[in-house]
């Protein structure tokens, strides 16, 4: 499913989702009965203080975690109880992740980093390179394709990470503190880029942040505290 194919409303439905951990035999309630919906093509900021459960929510939406309770539907598909292989396929085809620490392979060059998701979907190498080059061009780094992450600035690394999130043409991008390690200019560049992607490709984007200033780029903001929506 690609962003272009999105239709229907809502695109994401989170119903009564709870997530409990046990840390040193003590229960931790990361999320408590969280419920909201997201319309296709929305750019949403999820805000809250550290430890409020924002990242847990993103991980559940990205199929990296299974909620202890409740139901999550993305693009009409219940992702709450996927098998490991189904969850991997879901992440590969539907979701693009952007992390605060970029999570680029230091020994891969930019194009190899961007092409990584395509490797796990079995795309042949020439096609992969072409699509990775397109994605890099889309984020304005077409000329830096052979550079390793150590040769790029923070902002550029995050743009490579965004290109990696885009390369499989997902319908959902989950960005966890994408500007947490960037200065003001780079933050602006990244948020403008995400906004352009959202507008141009109608990709639904959820940005986790505690930076209030980023809310101006979002259609709306979801606030979360102590695992509950406020």
């Amino acid at each position, binding site marked *: 499913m690609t962003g272009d194919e999105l239709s229907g409303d809502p695109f994401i439905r989170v119903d009564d989702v709870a997530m409990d951990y046990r840390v040193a035999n003590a229960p931790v309630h990361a999320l408590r009965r969280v419920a909201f919906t997201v319309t296709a093509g929305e750019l949403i900021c999820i805000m809250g203080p550290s430890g409020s459960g924002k990242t847990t929510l993103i991980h559940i939406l990205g199929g990296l975690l299974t909620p202890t309770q409740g139901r999550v539907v993305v693009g009409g598909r219940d992702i709450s109880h996927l098998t*490991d292989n189904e969850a991997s396929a879901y*992440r590969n085809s539907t979701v693009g992740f952007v992390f605060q620490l970029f*999570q680029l392979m230091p*020994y891969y060059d930019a194009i190899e980093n961007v092409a990584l998701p395509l490797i796990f979907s079995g795309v042949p190498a020439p096609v992969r390179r072409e699509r990775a080059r397109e994605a890099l061009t889309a984020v304005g780094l077409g000329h830096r394709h052979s550079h390793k992450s150590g040769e790029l600035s923070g902002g550029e690394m995050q743009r490579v990470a965004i290109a*990696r999130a885009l390369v*499989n043409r997902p319908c959902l991008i989950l960005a966890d503190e994408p500007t947490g390690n960037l200065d003001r200019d780079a933050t602006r560049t990244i948020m403008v880029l995400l906004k352009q992607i959202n507008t141009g490709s109608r990709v639904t984007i959820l940005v986790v942040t505690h930076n209030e200033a980023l809310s101006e780029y979002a259609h709306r903001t979801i606030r979360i505290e102590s695992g509950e929506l406020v």
Partner: protein
Amino acid sequence: MIRRSDLLWIASKKLLVRKRWVLFTVFSLSLGLVIFTASVGLIEGIRAAALTALDQASRSFYADLTVEPKQERPRSSRPSGSVVALIHNASQTGQRLSADDEKKLERVDGVDAVWSETQVEPVKLGLPLETYHSMDRLTAAPESLIRRIAAPNVPWPARGVVPLVMSRAHLRSQFDETAKRFKVRPDFSDARYLGRTIDLWIGFNQSQNRDFRYDYSEGQPGFRRTTEKERDDEQVSSYRNWRSRFDLNIFRRALRLKAQIVGLSDLKVLVPLPFARDARRWIALRNRLAQKARGQPSGGESSGDAVSKLLVAVREPAAIPAVVGRIEKLGYRVHSRQSLIQEEIDKAATAFKTVKAIFYGIGLTIFALSCLLVWTTTSKVVADSRREIGVFRAVGATRRDILSIFILQATLLGTAGALLGVLLGVGLAAGISTAVLRWASQQRLDPDDAIPATLWSVDLTTTLLIVAGAILASVLAGLIPARRAARMDPVTALTQRE
């Protein structure tokens, strides 16, 4: 679904980042295999060379059978083949064979001649010999055996001329001035020497060829021609040594005879038994006279005719098995050429088995340690790759993909180590073989000495099994860390800080 080529790319890319670890693991893994491959190659090669040498040595057996008194193997004897056991058994041997035994054997149907091993020394042969070997010994054989060995086109010598079977090896040598070693004379042919009449000095105690010397002291040890002065010095030294033992004029008392080369054999110079006995009596008499002239007490007579073994010539070679059976029925132990060779082969096989087991043990130990190293390396790579595993899982890698990547890494380590080990092992075996053979060819005195072309061989099946075993062991060693990687929680892996 990840493609195989991409799997290989990801696995090798990560290994290339950990070059030092990888090289250390590969070299360690290969070390065990080097010992394995080299020892297997060399042992097999040396075994083949030993069999060739035994076969060559068997040609110097001039008797058809060797007969010994029958003895029970002592119960306390050690396993056959060990040097200690041979010495131990030899020390238990008290029985000897007498003239009665000789007569008894002569009466056995099919037996041509029976005699005890008899040698005549010192002697000198009037031939232009270039060999370094001393040619100072004649071996006695029944006349019938000498007639059997003799070339058919050479007439039997006239009365008064000793029929002699000459050692071919001693005639073929020629000193190569450039290579500083003996080589086969290019113009050598049997016909050149067959039928030739030569001088034969009985009791001539300066028969050793003094034209060549083997130098150990120089930078490159090898043969060289002796200088005039060295020859003179040696002559004087020899004269002094000899003078201290014998009468001053004994040198003049060598018995000069004529001999005719009637045939050529390997290694031994054969003369008829009656002549050999007469020659020995003459030498003994001369020695007694020499000692008497010096005022020394003469040595006692020999301690009688009892011998530890008798040699037997059989009339028809085809009848050898039947004759062996008949002699064994009389209560003797009989060895044919084949059974002697077989005994030597069995002894060699036992020794080779022991050596092989030792090398296998060393190789296996190193190999086991190397597998442990593969496990450690893969574990380290997994530990270092947590964030990478997290990212792979986030972008769609399945557990199976992660498992495959790390198992493939272990396989690559194993394959590289196995191939390197086998190549280095083969190279080491070839190198050792070349060095040993070069040394042996410099040391050998006779160009006919059995020096094989090579001392190593590669058994393809064994090599493939070694490589396959190494790879399999590496895969197994990498399986536990790979499973750990596959089961890693992606969220935990992603939040890992390096």
